């Protein structure tokens, strides 16, 4: 554990505001410095308050969960002058390999380009400390990574002092080179062996103070950008594992259906390129020389299926279930109220890289390659499934082609292991896009009921009852909350409710505020999707905020400004109002919308302009949804301290696109126990024709000095701002999302066979 030693009063005036930390030098051939992952949260257990997130939020719990079980992360200095670090997290596009390299470069005084960050294999000894989720990576690694780098820096200077015959105080380490007072220089690569530890020892270090940062807080391009633009970046399906041949699964026509019988196994086994066909727990697996031949074989299989876990269900029947489960507002309204009930339909994580994994299962051992955000849980569960000890299962974490919550689940890795064991050969398993849409994870359908009571110009109370199809938090996140729920000052409640209470906040001074989560129906494959509850909860709240403002005859921006509780919140709101020219004249059918959201010790405000005029809504787009166009978006974000402002800006840009999609166009339609969507021209995530031509992301200056969470932060305010703008442009209050859900804008593909045929007209369409 890293312990902060309080500086003794009056001991050293330069120590004020600087804390001393303990790290390690490990016995190794070259310099290996280490620190334990996990830092005691500042938050103290205090009396429960109406809004416990001000004391302790989700991230504090995740960080605290790591404490008793934390283990070492290591920074290694190599003889070629590079520095290696195996990050125990998943890089899914959020840029943590870059920001982690920046932390090391800052503290070790080496160029970012000299830091090689790879993704660590599953390390069971890290327990809770290898979960990527809840926007927690930078929060939980900010200090430990720097401590390890600072230990390395100290050892390098000591070694250089001996080498150069100089005093450490006369040495400078810059850009990977140590220089003494008379200009003699030695590179850190040449010191790597000399600085190595003969035995493992504990070392105390002082971290560089914030005012001396030259890397942290300075925009930096991604360390993997060159690999990405040259096609050299390797994702799971790009890896060449000997004899791991393409494999796909013929899946049921309804959610979680199972195989009853297959009529033509031998016939399909004899198809060109096919090497194996076998029935598994989720369908019929096919292995072939190419994925194209897998697709043909999947389509040729004649399978009789058992009904799944959502048999006969539809959007309408699930909405009825939710309505029946909704908790009533207990107290009668004694004052005027503003109320609303909002419906949020199923949505798909839909990472562009579909679910996939390579598995090589042999007698007595197994090796897995997959993009995994909870690799330890995956390793242990797969070992149990295969009947192997966890130590016999190696799990490699690959770079991921997006996640949005999807890679918290290891379904593909587990399925690939099952197939490989069944046929006794390595497999490269890939889900078809149709599989991902129809049998993949979905953000659960939910309703949110809000009642705000007011009198004159005061808001007296705010209550929000969120009712949702159960969110599966079991793979990783769930374990933490199960373990910790009892220790939290929120009473004896389950982890979904705990998660809900910890992740939601009430940023406005709205008198007595309460919120409640009710969950129903575990028949769907659900999960978080770039946030769990916040986008929906916030959108409902912000629409009601606009209503309240209207009731009181106030401007939506000024009303929010007046009721926001914190200065940081007002600063973000003011910034978007100023830059976005809030209140400017707009033609009829167009409008601005403004919204606010805080979470993960961070705040975000968004202003958008939307065009809902018929000529825009009905603009022609082939096989796509045009609809209202967000013509401008301005976001201001304060994450406390942005390690890499350019990366943060990229994250927020993505959040804006998600917000636009969730309010306007993207959802899954449930009918007869299956989702109708089977591809991208069915599932209308934001496309170029929906993208705001004007976009400004403003990263606000450092406030708290500690990084907050960022990966998911911006979705909620973006979604809400688009909804508020739409409401103001159309003179309505939208209550069902996305707003086009009622119109099916595509011809659903058949469910049998489960995947569409591969087209043949590619050359004709070249342009």
């Amino acid at each position: 554990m890293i312990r902060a030693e309080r500086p003794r009063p009056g001991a050293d005036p330069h120590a004020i505001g600087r804390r001393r930390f303990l790290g390690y030098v490990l016995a190794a051939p070259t310099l290996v410095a280490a620190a334990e992952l996990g830092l005691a949260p500042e938050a103290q257990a205090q009396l429960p308050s109406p809004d416990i997130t001000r004391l302790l939020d989700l991230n504090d719990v995740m960080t605290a969960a790591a404490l008793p079980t934390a283990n070492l992360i290591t920074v290694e200095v190599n003889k070629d002058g590079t520095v290696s670090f195996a990050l125990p997290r998943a890089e899914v596009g959020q840029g943590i390999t870059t920001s982690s390299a920046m932390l090391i470069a800052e503290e070790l005084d080496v160029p970012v380009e000299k830091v090689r960050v790879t993704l660590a294999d599953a390390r069971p000894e890290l327990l809770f400390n290898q979960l990527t989720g809840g926007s927690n990576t930078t929060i939980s690694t900010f200090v430990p990574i720097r401590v390890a780098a600072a230990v390395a820096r100290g050892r390098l200077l000591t070694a250089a002092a001996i080498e150069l015959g100089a005093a450490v105080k006369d040495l400078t380490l810059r850009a990977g080179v140590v220089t003494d007072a008379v200009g003699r220089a030695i590179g850190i690569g040449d010191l790597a062996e000399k600085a190595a530890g003969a035995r493992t020892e504990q070392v105390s270090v002082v971290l560089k103070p914030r005012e001396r940062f030259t890397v942290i807080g300075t925009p930096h391009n991604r360390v993997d950008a060159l690999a990405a633009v040259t096609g050299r970046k390797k994702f799971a399906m790009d890896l060449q594992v000997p004899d791991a041949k393409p494999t796909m699964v013929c899946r049921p026509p309804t959610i979680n259906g199972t195989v009853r019988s297959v009529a033509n196994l031998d016939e399909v086994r004899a198809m060109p390129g096919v090497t194996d066909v076998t029935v598994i727990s989720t369908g019929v697996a096919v292995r072939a020389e190419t994925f194209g031949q897998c697709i043909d074989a999947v389509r040729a299989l004649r399978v009789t299926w058992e009904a799944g876990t959502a048999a006969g269900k539809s959007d309408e029947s699930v909405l009825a279930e939710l309505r029946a489960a909704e908790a009533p507002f207990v107290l009668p309204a004694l004052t005027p109220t503003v109320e609303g009930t909002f419906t949020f339909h199923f949505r798909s994580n839909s990472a562009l890289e579909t679910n996939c994994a390579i598995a090589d299962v042999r007698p007595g051992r197994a090796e897995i390659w997959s993009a995994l955000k909870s690799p330890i849980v995956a390793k242990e569960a797969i070992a149990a499934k295969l009947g192997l000890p966890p130590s016999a299962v190696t799990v490699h974490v690959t770079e991921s082609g997006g996640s949005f919550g999807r890679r918290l689940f290891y379904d593909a890795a587990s399925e690939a292991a099952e197939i490989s064991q069944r046929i006794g050969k390595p497999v490269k398993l890939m889900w078809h896009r149709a599989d991902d849409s129809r049998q993949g994870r979905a953000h659960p359908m939910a309703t949110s009921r809000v009642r705000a009571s007011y009198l004159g110009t005061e808001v007296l109370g705010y209550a929000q009852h969120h009712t949702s199809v159960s969110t599966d938090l079991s793979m990783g996140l769930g374990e933490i909350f199960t373990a910790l729920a009892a220790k939290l000052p929120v009473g004896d409640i389950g982890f979904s409710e705990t998660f809900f209470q910890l992740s939601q906040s009430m940023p406005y001074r709205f008198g007595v505020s309460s919120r409640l989560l009710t969950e129903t129906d575990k028949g769907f494959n659900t999960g978080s999707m770039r946030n769990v509850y916040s986008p929906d909860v916030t959108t409902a709240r912000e629409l009601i905020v606009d209503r309240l403002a209207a009731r009181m005859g106030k401007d939506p921006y000024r009303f929010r400004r007046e009721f926001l509780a914190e200065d940081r919140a007002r600063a973000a709101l003011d910034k978007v109002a100023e830059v976005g020219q809030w209140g400017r004249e707009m033609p009829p059918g167009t409008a601005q919308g403004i919204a606010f959201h805080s979470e993960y010790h961070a705040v975000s405000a968004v202003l958008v302009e939307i065009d809902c005029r018929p000529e825009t809504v009905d603009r022609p787009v082939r096989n796509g949804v045009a609809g209202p166009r967000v013509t401008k978006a301005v976001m201001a974000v304060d994450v406390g301290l942005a390690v890499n402002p350019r990366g943060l800006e990229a994250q927020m840009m993505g959040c804006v696109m998600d917000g636009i999609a969730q309010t306007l166009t993207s959802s899954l339609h449930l009918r007869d126990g299956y989702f109708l969507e089977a591809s991208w021209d069915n599932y209308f995530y934001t496309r170029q024709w929906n993208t705001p031509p004007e976009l400004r992301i403003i990263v606000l200056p450092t406030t708290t000095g500690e990084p907050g969470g960022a990966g998911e932060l911006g979705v909620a305010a973006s979604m809400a701002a688009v909804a508020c703008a739409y409401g103001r442009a159309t003179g309505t209050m939208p209550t069902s999302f996305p707003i086009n859900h009622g119109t099916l804008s595509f011809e659903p593909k058949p469910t049998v066979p489960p995947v569409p045929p591969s087209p043949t007209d590619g050359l004709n369409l070249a342009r």
Partner: protein
Amino acid sequence: MPKHTFRLNGEQVTVDVADDVRLLWVLRDVLGVTGPKYGCGINVCKACTSHVNGKAANPCAIPVKDLAPTDEVTTIEGLPATVGKDLHPMQQAWLDHDVAQCGYCQPGQIMAAVALVRRVAEEGRTITDDDLDGIRNICRCGTYFRIREAIKDGARHM
């Protein structure tokens, strides 16, 4: 098995594979060329966008038998060589604007952008917002805005 021959990134290649296997799988599974990505398999996500004789085309929708021996297939791996440099100007623009997030769609985005700029230039005009709106390539990380900026910049250097 039938033999098929075509030009790939400047070299003649010959593969032994069934007639109807789509080019995407010939590239990825047979030849180990993994720049073009799978995202849908039905020519809508555009993650596999490459060039056939200089035009944007999607290998997931091209049976290998449709290629003639003289057809020139260019994937992201072969793009820099088309201008005789280590990086094509569009790739450089992508780096300058730090476009990529997860990076999965980016080879396809860049190949689509290069073909778009060439087509627009052949029409004797410069890129417009309507041209950019017409790009169908999905970026699920939502880095569309930086893609737009990079294309305009890259076009100036092509």
